[in-house]
């Protein structure tokens, strides 16, 4: 006996739309079971997790703060994933973006000018894009697997940023703690209102989501992304270049991740330190898929994942569950999103008669690169951060 995945003739449109919602419900059910096992009241726990934060304006603001980098990174990834390129290294591009952007306020700490802020945002995008260019170049030039190279470069970026904030950029008045000097006023992304934690990064993220939606839905570039993603051959006939698309997709998603990095550094932390890497780049992959690679869906998905962080802290405080529980939720969510997607496109068949080993094995479905990438994503989110 063995299990086999067989491609369905046509995926149901209804279920394609419902898929993320089914996944959400399944996550909640699995989460409730987890709470029962932990000895906590399941419904009250889920309430603490997913409803209570929404009733408190402060918690809503914190959700907005968390959703900002997730949205920025995920809309970039949406373009990349849609084009059939698998950038798993957004976390690294996010870090290098943050570092590039920090260059001006760190090296020219006294430079106060209105052009500093736009300049550092551009620098952040540039840093992320250049870092994204490495796996893109390797793929288009040598045919390397971009999933592996982009992922590995995350660790390089983490070590590099760690080194720079402990070494050359360390604040001399910082008692030896890793981290640069605090940025001056003109290098700080302003708060949305007085004393707010939420900053203009949220506005930038929303504008970016709408902009990317427009690009994907209404422009030739968006058409090119979709065509090359769904059928590279057809795309080539239309005169589109797969290689150029790889470069574009990585530059674009890298720039967005870099922008997320610098907006976090400049808006929230106000300096570069060794705690910048919080796994947003990996969580954003869940966000991108949960949002169905649609920029507007991504905004909603980012808010859901941000809620899982803030709710996780609330649950830690009032229920005494470990901080790992929030990560389990995120893992469950990605698992169910991918499982639902798979089951919409494939049916599971149980074959009773095993095929002869010597015979030519019938392969109704060879694992596509998409599935490999998703598996990789799964591994990362599962125990990456």
């Amino acid at each position, binding site marked *: 006996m063995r299990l086999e995945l067989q491609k369905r003739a046509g995926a149901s449109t209804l279920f394609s739309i419902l898929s993320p919602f089914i996944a959400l419900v399944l996550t909640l059910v699995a989460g409730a079971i987890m709470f029962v096992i932990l000895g906590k009241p399941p419904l009250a726990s889920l309430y603490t997790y997913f409803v209570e934060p929404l009733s408190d304006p402060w918690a809503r603001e914190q959700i907005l703060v968390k959703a900002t980098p997730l949205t920025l990174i995920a809309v970039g990834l949406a373009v990349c994933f849609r084009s059939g390129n698998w950038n798993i290294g957004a976390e690294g591009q996010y870090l290098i973006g943050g570092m590039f952007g920090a260059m001006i306020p760190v090296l020219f700490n006294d430079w106060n000018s209105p052009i500093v802020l736009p300049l550092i945002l551009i620098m952040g995008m540039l840093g992320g894009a250049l870092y994204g260019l490495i796996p893109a170049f390797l793929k288009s030039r040598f045919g390397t697997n971009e999933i592996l190279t982009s992922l590995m470069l995350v660790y390089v970026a983490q070590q590099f940023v760690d080194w720079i904030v402990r070494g050359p950029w360390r604040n001399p008045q910082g*008692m*030896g*703690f890793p981290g640069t000097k605090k940025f001056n006023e003109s290098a700080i992304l302003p708060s949305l209102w007085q004393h707010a934690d939420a900053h203009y990064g949220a506005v930038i993220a929303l504008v970016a989501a709408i902009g990317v939606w427009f690009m994907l839905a209404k422009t030739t570039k968006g058409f090119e992304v979709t065509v090359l993603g769904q059928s590279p051959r057809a795309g080539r006939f239309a005169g589109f270049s797969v290689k150029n698309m790889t470069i574009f997709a990585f530059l674009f998603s890298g720039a967005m991740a870099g922008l997320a990095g610098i907006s976090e550094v400049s808006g929230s932390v106000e300096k570069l330190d060794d*705690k910048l890497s919080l796994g947003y780049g990996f969580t954003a992959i869940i966000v991108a898929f949960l949002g169905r690679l649609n920029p507007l869906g991504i905004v909603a998905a980012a808010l859901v994942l941000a809620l899982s962080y803030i709710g996780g802290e609330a649950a*830690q405080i009032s229920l005494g569950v470990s901080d790992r529980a929030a990560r389990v939720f995120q893992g469950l969510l990605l698992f169910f999103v991918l499982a639902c997607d798979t089951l919409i496109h494939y049916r599971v068949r149980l074959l009773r008669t095993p095929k002869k080993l010597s015979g030519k094995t019938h392969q109704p479905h060879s694992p596509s690169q998409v599935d490999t990438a998703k598996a990789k994503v799964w591994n990362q989110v599962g125990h990456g951060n």
Partner: protein
Amino acid sequence: MKKTLFALAASAAVMLSAGAAQADGHAKTKACFIYIGPTGDFGWTYQHDEGRKAVEAKFGDKVETAYLENVPESAEAQRPIEAFARSGCNIIFTTSFNYMDPTNKAAAKYPDVKFEHATGYKREHPNVSTYSSKFYQGRYVQGQIAAKMSKTGVAGYIASFPIPEVVRGINSFILGAQSVNPDFKLKVVWVSTWFDPPKEADAAKALIDQGVDILTQHTDSTAAMQVAAERGIKAFGQASDMIKFGPKTQLTAIIDDWAPYYIERVKAVMDGTWKQQDVWHGMDHGSVAMAPYTNMPDDVAAMAKKTEESIRDGSFEPFTGPVMKQDGTVWLKDGEKADIGTMLGMNFYVKGVDDKLPQ
């Protein structure tokens, strides 16, 4: 007798405070704790959590406690502190040095909540207190033991961050060692983290490879103790009794006992007598204690006990001259005691430390 009195006083206070708390609209006093590592680090955070449990045991139904573990020392720390303040915590203990700014920022936003920041020095608002212990007193005893026990005459020190508290510990250790063996040397490795078991273990191995045969640490995990046990050298436990992780390895350990302080401060909140303060207690208050002296000859243990006792009763102070700085200049003249300002801001090594202090 003293105990009974205290218990009577405590229960009276509890009764009084219950009335006060109810009048205030709270049934219970809520004490909350922010931890840098996991409660299962069996070092620094573990001891703070033992203090939290002692508060629960002491006040029972009158109190509610909560904690958040693995909270990074960064801007990210402010959100959980604020979340605590909003969840009805009456007093919040933030138990690592670099929670200093997030704690003070949160204190400004929640003036009715009391904040207690461990090992810091900023009290920017009237609702922020700071507290620490004179861990360096235990380091001196350790230094003496190390000098007696070491064959190579070199000990290894796994250090976290060059903040005064850590530098004080290093200096006190080497002064203790030199009181036994004037030529004793100390090697230091900076790991730039409070809690990272693999990194701590690597530092331990590197030090052993450089010829040290006694290890001590200013980090939070038991990793170094375990490495020392594997490699057959001796080591000191840090923050908590780590004898379980090195039954044949641990010489003694500095035990941080936060329970009395936490009970006192939670009670002050209950009574409505909480006031801003800066507390730095040592062995005399029992906030710094030594684990049993094990794996050493009786005469060494007797010497350690004698030193411990003289520090506790105040007849001896580790930072007493003559002491020279690392560069050979005189810091403390014969019989001179260090002033508190220099102690709190200590940013230089004394003679004999084989390391350059990171700036």
